[in-house]
């Protein structure tokens, strides 16, 4: 399988900004250092699937931050990746959710997981909030067995 290097670099860079932000806010938390190491290891192994999962989890995690921290972190991401960069979804997640919604069905267990996990933590400011009902239908209609 061909590895999309640009996507890996982007997700790694984005994840590093988020974890460094967390480390800055939680200097003495060893768990944050462990997570930082896992991000580094995943990148070194060129594990794009793992990096996508890490990035989606970090996106969800950020939703428990205070509004002030969310704004601060979003500024950092926009500085690095441009004004279009959104905190709730990385570009990779945005692209796959858009694709699933466009075709109107879930084809794989991985697509099911992406939609399922996105809905777990969805908030009004998220890009696909207005698609909640459509996403629910997609989950309901997918025969996972």
């Amino acid at each position, binding site marked *: 399988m061909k590895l999309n290097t640009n996507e890996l670099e982007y997700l790694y860079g984005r994840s590093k900004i988020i974890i460094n932000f967390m480390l800055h806010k939680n200097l003495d938390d060893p*768990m944050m250092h462990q997570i930082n190491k896992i991000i580094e290891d995943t990148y070194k192994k060129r594990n794009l699937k793992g990096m996508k999962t890490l990035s989606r989890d970090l996106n969800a995690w950020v939703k428990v931050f205070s509004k002030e921290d969310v704004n601060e972190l979003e500024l950092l991401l926009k500085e690095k990746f441009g004004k279009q960069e959104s905190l709730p979804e990385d570009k990779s997640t945005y692209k796959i959710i858009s694709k699933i919604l466009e075709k109107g069905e879930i084809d794989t267990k991985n697509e099911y997981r992406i939609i399922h996990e996105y809905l777990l933590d969805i908030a009004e400011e998220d890009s696909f909030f207005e698609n909640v009902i459509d996403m629910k239908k997609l989950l309901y209609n997918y025969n996972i067995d």
Partner: protein
Amino acid sequence: MTNALGQVYIGRTSGYGDPISIMNRRTSYHHMKRFGFGNPVIDRAVQGYSGYPAIRGREQQLIDHYGGVGNPKVGNRIRGVSKLNPLGYIYYGASNLYFGPLSLYSGLKF
């Protein structure tokens, strides 16, 4: 959440406000209601940066506690934490730290 067949569905969510309001908001648009699941109850709630991994781990440990995905008692169609999730063991450890162990680790170690 539970259904008339006695199955249990384990989930999680996050947001601003008190835990019951957050849970009710999530339940209001939950796709598992179409499968007859309702009567949500809160198992654990945490606040703060470090709470997220603990809740992720707890969700998976609860699913495993009831027999795991595929067990007739469990309504979840997928695991809470993918076996291939690089952070799976972190979530497991965080849950143990916050709430105590409930089941053995069932994912892969990286």
